[in-house]
């Protein structure tokens, strides 16, 4: 009897370990739970999901100063949210991720919320039209194969409004799924229409937004010719912090020929060795594995107001990225800086300070060949002086 009870309890709690992350899903349209059942199935496999109505008073993002949820999925509505935009932004600032599924008739609340992340929704009532890349000739249901950062092979279907990115260059805002070249929307004739956009903050929290929630609905997810199912999986993995997460630790700098780690100071023109371990989270094996960077792009800067070196690190054994170099002919306080801002990966910003001292008075070279004439002349005057003394004093 007791064994049976333990078995039942084990089965009940097997899928929900106590440290699993919690996701809050907010929507005010109950039809969503039917039309996006696959999406919620995928979510429930790895997270504990709470479904709440946007307009209800039964949920609290924060309770006594502690965040109750780890991630947030928002289905946008034509009404405003009870929670203020500031509270949502605080949720994001604390490192938690948000997924916003928009629609073309969403209210100004959601449009302004999008603007805080560098994304912008197209005008009210517009939808993306494409006469060339579409499904069955219906120019409102458009497809694209232009997917960045996420790994999706088949074309992705979109129906509804599109997004736009900030027109200036930032390293934080990405167009994950972009429109094909023949798409346009309303009065926007640019081909920079974005179907799924994302922003990664400096605290490495991720925000993913789409212009229409139909992109994740069952009718496209169940279609095995389309890439929407993979896209949903990838959005859940990337957006909620499971894939492309980097960690850097074990920073070592030492003189090249000694074993003392992080010595008190270095001297001009000494050989220095620097190494750091960079790991990537593997969600399938549930552990940190060594990160392999394509094309040698983890760059170390050796900076004192200006970089004196800016060299890519070489991959060593395991997760080690290392470099040995000669400290330049300048003394002062330098920093080892790594500013790794690869799109899609977490930002690695590392700075470690060292001091470089000038030569001590007995560390300069001795008996330089260049100075031989001067040595000879000094001792030559002394020898001449001795000869002079002898000649002078012995002269009658």
């Amino acid at each position: 009897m007791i064994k049976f009870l333990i078995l039942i309890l084990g089965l009940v709690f097997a899928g929900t370990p106590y440290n699993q992350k919690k996701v809050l899903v907010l929507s005010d349209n109950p039809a969503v739970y039917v039309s996006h059942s696959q999406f919620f199935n995928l979510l429930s496999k790895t997270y504990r999901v709470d479904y709440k109505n946007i307009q209800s008073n039964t949920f609290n993002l924060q309770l006594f100063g502690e965040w109750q949820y780890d991630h947030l999925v928002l289905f946008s509505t034509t009404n405003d949210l009870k929670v203020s935009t500031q509270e949502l932004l605080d949720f994001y600032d604390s490192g938690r991720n948000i997924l916003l599924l928009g629609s073309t008739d969403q209210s100004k609340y959601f449009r302004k919320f999008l603007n805080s992340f560098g994304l912008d929704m197209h005008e009210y009532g517009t939808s993306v039209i494409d006469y060339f890349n579409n499904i069955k000739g219906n120019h409102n249901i458009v497809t694209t194969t232009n997917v960045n950062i996420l790994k999706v092979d088949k074309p992705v279907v979109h129906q509804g409004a599109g997004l736009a990115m900030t027109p200036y260059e930032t390293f934080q805002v990405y167009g994950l799924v972009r429109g094909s070249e023949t798409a346009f929307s309303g009065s926007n004739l640019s081909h920079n229409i974005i179907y799924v956009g994302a922003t990664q903050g400096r605290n490495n929290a991720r925000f993913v937004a789409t212009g229409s929630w139909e992109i994740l609905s069952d009718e496209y997810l169940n279609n095995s010719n389309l890439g929407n199912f993979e896209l949903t999986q990838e959005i859940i993995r990337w957006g909620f912090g499971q894939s492309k997460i980097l960690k850097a630790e074990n920073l070592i700098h030492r003189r090249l020929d000694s074993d003392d780690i992080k010595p008190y100071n270095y001297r001009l023109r000494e050989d220095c060795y620097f190494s750091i371990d960079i790991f990537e989270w593997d969600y399938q094996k549930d552990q940190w594995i060594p990160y392999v960077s394509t094309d040698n792009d983890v760059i170390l800067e050796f900076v004192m107001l200006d970089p004196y070196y800016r060299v890519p690190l070489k991959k060593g054994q395991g997760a080690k990225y290392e470099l040995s170099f000669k400290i330049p002919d300048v003394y002062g306080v330098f920093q080892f800086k790594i500013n790794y801002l690869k799109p899609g990966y977490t930002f690695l910003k590392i700075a470690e300070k060292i001091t470089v001292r000038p030569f001590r008075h007995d560390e300069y070279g001795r008996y330089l060949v260049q100075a031989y004439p001067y040595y000879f002349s000094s001792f030559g005057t002394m020898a001449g002086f001795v000869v002079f003394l002898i000649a002078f004093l012995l002269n009658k």
Partner: protein
Amino acid sequence: MSDTKFVDENSLIGIAASFWQQYSTKTPQKLKIMDAFSLYCFILVIIQLFYCTLVGDFPRNSFLSGIFAAAGAMIINICLRKQLNPETKYMEISNERAFWEYLAAMIVLFLTVINFLG
């Protein structure tokens, strides 16, 4: 001055020739030895300056000490010569005292030079 003069006394060569004649007959032996030593130090200074214009004064301390040794020795020597010559004497001290001061000055000079040489 009974020998015939083959050079004109007012030209440059004449001046040099008459200077050399006066110098070699009138100065005592001791002063000539001192002049030889001064000339030797002066030549050393010239050689070092020539080397410095070729290669540059990289070990600045060594350059300074080399030049200072030779030039300083020359100057101290010239001071003693002035003392020993009754025409150009400038202080009322005996010759022996002048010589001891000369030795002291030279020792200080050589100590400084060796310290600065590295």
